């Protein structure tokens, strides 16, 4: 397929009095992972519903795999889209296997192969040992894995995951991201919506930050980091106060966090200077995390709303 897999062109969605989304432009290419970030009610779920074709946009155009997702023609494309809703609780009285077999059948698999396929999916997400148990006996993590298995049905070309790692333990989270990486290498595009910021950054190609229905920022993490001009935290050890004596380094020193906060463009200069000290034994360099980038853009948005206060580029 030529062109982007998903494209949103000046898309808006408003309910009676509420503008859930306003003029969103976005594209998603094949094999790309997009992280969708924003606080509660920022419009993340609305955006996913629009892309899924469950609701229609009030304005603008959405194209998914070449067609409008809410049209009749896009019907068959739904077999190639996987979705994990936020807070879904599956049919409690059914067993995990029964739930997944039901969804597999609805995705177009025949009765016989659906059960076999459901078992293999449950094995993939690691709940095969409990597949004969009723869902009501499942832990939160197991339910989430079941939901993921459901989203993976039919090797989708496009995956929309709303809070996929909520309730997963660190090991399961790592497993999950491994699966995402794997799907990505097979050419699946993923839209990942998450509150849990640490750990996501290595797995996404681009990030989109939403606030009150508007796009605050979009781009690769490096791009966003540069644009925000956020400081890099450098923590040298073994220098015993020499940093404070150096006038140049002292300017960057932050007392509260006991490290140096250096703008991205000055990073190499400072590092070289630090390396010239002979008694330096270790050095920790931490570039601005996704969390800080996210917070930066959110506060930027708030400050734009109240023009009296000044915008601070570098800071804590």
């Amino acid at each position, binding site marked *: 397929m030529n062109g982007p897999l998903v494209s949103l062109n000046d898309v808006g969605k408003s309910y009676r009095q509420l503008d859930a989304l306003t003029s969103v432009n976005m594209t998603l290419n094949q094999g790309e992972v997009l992280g969708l970030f924003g606080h509660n009610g920022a419009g993340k779920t609305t955006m996913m*519903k629009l892309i899924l074709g469950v609701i229609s946009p009030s304005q603008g155009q959405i194209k998914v795999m070449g067609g409008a997702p809410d049209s009749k023609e896009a019907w068959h494309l739904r077999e190639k889209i996987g979705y994990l*809703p936020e807070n*879904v609780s599956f*049919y409690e009285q059914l067993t995990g296997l029964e739930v997944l077999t039901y969804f597999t059948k*609805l995705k177009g698999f025949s009765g016989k192969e659906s059960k076999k396929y459901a078992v293999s999916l449950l094995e993939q997400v690691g709940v095969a040992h409990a597949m004969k148990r009723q869902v009501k006996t499942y832990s939160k993590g197991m339910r989430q894995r079941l939901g993921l298995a459901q989203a993976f049905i039919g090797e989708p070309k496009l995956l929309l995951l709303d809070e996929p790692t909520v309730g997963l333990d660190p090991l399961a989270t790592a497993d999950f991201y491994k699966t995402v990486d794997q799907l990505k290498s097979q050419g699946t595009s993923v839209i990942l919506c998450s509150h849990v910021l640490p750990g996501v950054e290595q797995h996404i190609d681009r990030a989109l930050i939403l606030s009150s229905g508007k796009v605050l920022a979009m781009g690769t993490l490096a791009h966003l980091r540069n644009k925000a001009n956020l400081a890099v935290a450098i923590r040298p050890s073994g220098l015993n106060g020499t940093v404070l004596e150096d006038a140049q380094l002292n300017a960057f020193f932050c007392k509260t966090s006991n490290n140096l906060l250096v703008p991205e463009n000055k990073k190499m200069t400072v590092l070289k200077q630090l390396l010239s000290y002979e008694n330096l034994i270790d050095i920790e360099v931490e570039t601005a995390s996704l969390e800080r980038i996210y917070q930066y853009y959110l506060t930027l948005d708030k400050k734009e709303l109240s023009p009296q206060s000044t915008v601070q580029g570098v800071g804590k």
Partner: protein
Amino acid sequence: MKQILTVANKEFQDGLRNRWLVSITIIFAILSIGLTYFGAAASGSLGITSLSTTVASLASLAVFLIPLIALLLSYDSFVGEQESGTLLLLLTYPLSKTQLLLGKFIGQGGIIALATLLGFGASAILLYFQLGDNGVLKTFALFIASAILLGLSFTAIAYLISLSVSEKSKAAGFALITWFLFALAFDLALLALLVGIDNGLTQQGLTQLMILNPADIFRLVNLAGLDSSDVNGVLAIAINASLSQGQLFSILIAWVILPLTLATFIFKKKKL
């Protein structure tokens, strides 16, 4: 079609799993067999009573029970799935709203229909062997067919409720009110009209009003053919001016199709 059957199968299995089928069948069987044997107890005798007495008592009980059971079985069908989030998920599948609705209707309607057939069929067979009368089978066939339609009609009405509200508890409340209005209040209102206002209602007018309630049509179907000595209340008057069985059945079928169509319409407009 395959999608509809997948949903129908799941709903039917749910009905089996939750013991709905077994419970409804047992309730109907005990009621009908009990009434068949003890229906005449009030007049001081035990044993099999006349066919018309049995059907008259069965019909007046079924007219309360069947709507209640159908509403109970189906009121949370959509609002329940909406609350748990599976409704939204299902709609991202290659499954249209009409397919989902029809699938649920076939599955849950199947439970009601099968339970009615088994439960009331049991006493039909019992009566047939005791009386050895072919008329038993014919009367019961009519009774069971109309009972199934009554059940399906209230299943469709339950979907209307389930699709119009956004909370399960509200749906339960509305289901209860609906049952009260159709099963009890409607007839009381008719009676009040008849008695309270002189020349307020003609027989024709009464029958016309009765077709506004599927429960009353069910009564008309089953009591029209009986000796009027077994029938009392508003019905006795209405029966004399009654419509033909064919017409009554058509109206009952309309009471299944219309709410179902309206429910599909509401579902399509529903904001998720």
